[in-house]
């Protein structure tokens, strides 16, 4: 039924219409609506940010992915790692580990993950030299991992072999006797004896007899057949340089060293022979990978320097 117009009292002209209670709570009518919405938004945002910042709850993952046994601050602990850790720590197969053992290992893994994350938060690499060193080493390995695990093709290896052919030879071998005057011998007498011994050896006399006759003894530096590099270490550079030039049966001139004059008699001397690619394949692969690793690490260093902001004080440039 329509209301009669006379049922509502007439308002004086110019008077604003009175607001009902309903009007006051009508959102569309609220004079500070924008301000209030903005304030609520800011409060909620700050709350969420603080919650996330100080508790990590804000970034919480609500479910554990199927491949994980747990998630620690968003980082999954893989079932595979958990199984491996249980087996390594308990010394039994995972299926044989009991619930308490599994629980213990899981708690340890969670603790480890928490400590690792905390270590990063407090910038442990800047504080602890061991962590710092391990980090450097880890990054170097990470950089070189492609080289380490790369399977070079035959063509790559052959190219490398051709470029470094001189490095691929059979092992140089020598058997040498090294006579030296005993300590304390007068230097002039020792040198004369050494010269006489060398002459006697060249004349074909036996090493032992010559040593006894000219008061020279085996230096004991080399024993039996040795690889070139081993002989070089044992004899020293100067004596090795003489020995390597001698053919089997040849005798060196006396070589004066700090401990007196030496005379070398070469019994065998097998000089290194170039190896074919097939024969040297494993050594080529090892060296190829090493060279690649070195190159990658150098490149990484260059790359990091290019993108870094490094300032060096004038006095140290």
């Amino acid at each position, binding site marked *: 039924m329509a209301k009669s117009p006379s049922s509502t009292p007439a308002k004086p002209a110019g008077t604003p219409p009175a607001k009902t209670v309903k009007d006051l709570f009508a959102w569309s009518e609220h004079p500070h609506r924008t301000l209030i919405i903005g304030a609520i938004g800011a409060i909620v945002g700050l709350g969420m940010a603080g919650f996330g910042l100080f508790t990590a709850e804000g970034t919480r993952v609500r479910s554990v*992915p*199927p*491949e994980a046994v747990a998630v620690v601050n968003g980082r999954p602990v*893989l*079932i*595979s*790692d958990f*199984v*491996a850790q249980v*087996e390594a720590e308990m010394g039994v*197969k*995972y*299926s044989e580990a009991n619930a308490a053992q599994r629980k213990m290992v899981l708690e340890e893994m969670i603790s480890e993950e928490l400590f690792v994350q905390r270590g990063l938060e407090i910038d442990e690499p800047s504080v602890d030299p061991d962590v710092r060193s391990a980090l450097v080493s*880890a990054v170097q*390995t*990470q950089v*070189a*991992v492609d080289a*380490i*695990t790369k*399977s070079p093709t035959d063509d790559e290896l052959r190219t490398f072999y051709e470029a470094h052919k001189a490095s691929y030879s059979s*092992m140089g*071998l020598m058997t040498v006797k090294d006579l030296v005057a005993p300590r304390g011998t007068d230097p002039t007498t020792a040198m004369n004896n050494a010269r006489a011994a060398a002459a006697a050896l060249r004349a074909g006399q036996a090493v032992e007899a010559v040593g006894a006759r000219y008061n020279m003894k085996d230096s004991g530096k080399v024993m*039996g*057949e*040795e*690889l070139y*590099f*081993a002989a070089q*270490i044992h004899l020293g550079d100067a004596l090795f340089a003489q020995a390597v030039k001698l053919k089997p049966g040849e005798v060196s001139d006396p070589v004066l060293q700090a401990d007196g004059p030496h005379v070398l008699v070469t019994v065998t001397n097998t000089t290194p022979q170039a190896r074919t690619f097939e024969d040297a*394949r*494993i*050594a080529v*692969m*090892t060296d190829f990978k090493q060279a690649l690793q070195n190159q990658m690490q150098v490149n990484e260093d260059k790359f990091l320097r290019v993108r870094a902001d490094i300032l060096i004080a004038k006095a140290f440039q």
Partner: protein
Amino acid sequence: MLQGKSRWKTVAVGAAVAVVAVLGWLVYRHGRDAAMLRLAPDSLPENASLYAFAVSGGKGVFARNCAGCHGADMKGDRKTGVPDLTDVDWQFGEGRVAEIEQIALYGIRAADHRTKNQADMPAFGREQPYARYSIPTLTPQEMDDIATYIGVTQGREAEPEALKRGIALFDTKGQCFDCHGNDMGGDTFIGAPNLADKVWVNGDGSKKAIIDIIAQGRVGVSPMFKNTLSPAQIRAVAAYIHSKAIPPPPAA
């Protein structure tokens, strides 16, 4: 012939069916992956249906990521020291799914603290045989003697004195026993091969090949796939490799 409107209706229904089918397949696939991943790896072979699902998925993963080195037939390459994955002679572990999965995840001598990287075969003929710590080089005669000793396990005759020296060197200066064991049985925890079983990862087991290994060393590697393959792909390829390592039939 369908009128314009009806034709579009049919196309729309067909497309909707296709989308639903694809979505259904993805959901099914995701569900199977999740079920496969929730199992402890070694439990997978006990679940025939999931194991078959994993093996079929692993075949393609292997072809794309592993066959380059191990070969499509998984037989490896003894020239480059890539192991045969079908011969049940495992260098690391016993061939369980869990062990294979760990290698697929973290590799061998790769850049992760969980990688297999406990020891290397030293190069006794090089000036610095071992990068991890100092050990002595061996003379050619000593390497020859050790190869003689190892050769006996391959059925070769040996001169008694050389054999005696080889045994002594194996247990002392060469430190071979430390990784390969006094019985030459190897150690699958660190990846030291069995030297007595006539299965060779590197070379053909000839004396020359053995001396070459002693002189030049070996450092086998395998990439880690943790960052390039999904957990489901890694579980699947582990199951596939596991399925191909068939034990020989028992002797009659």
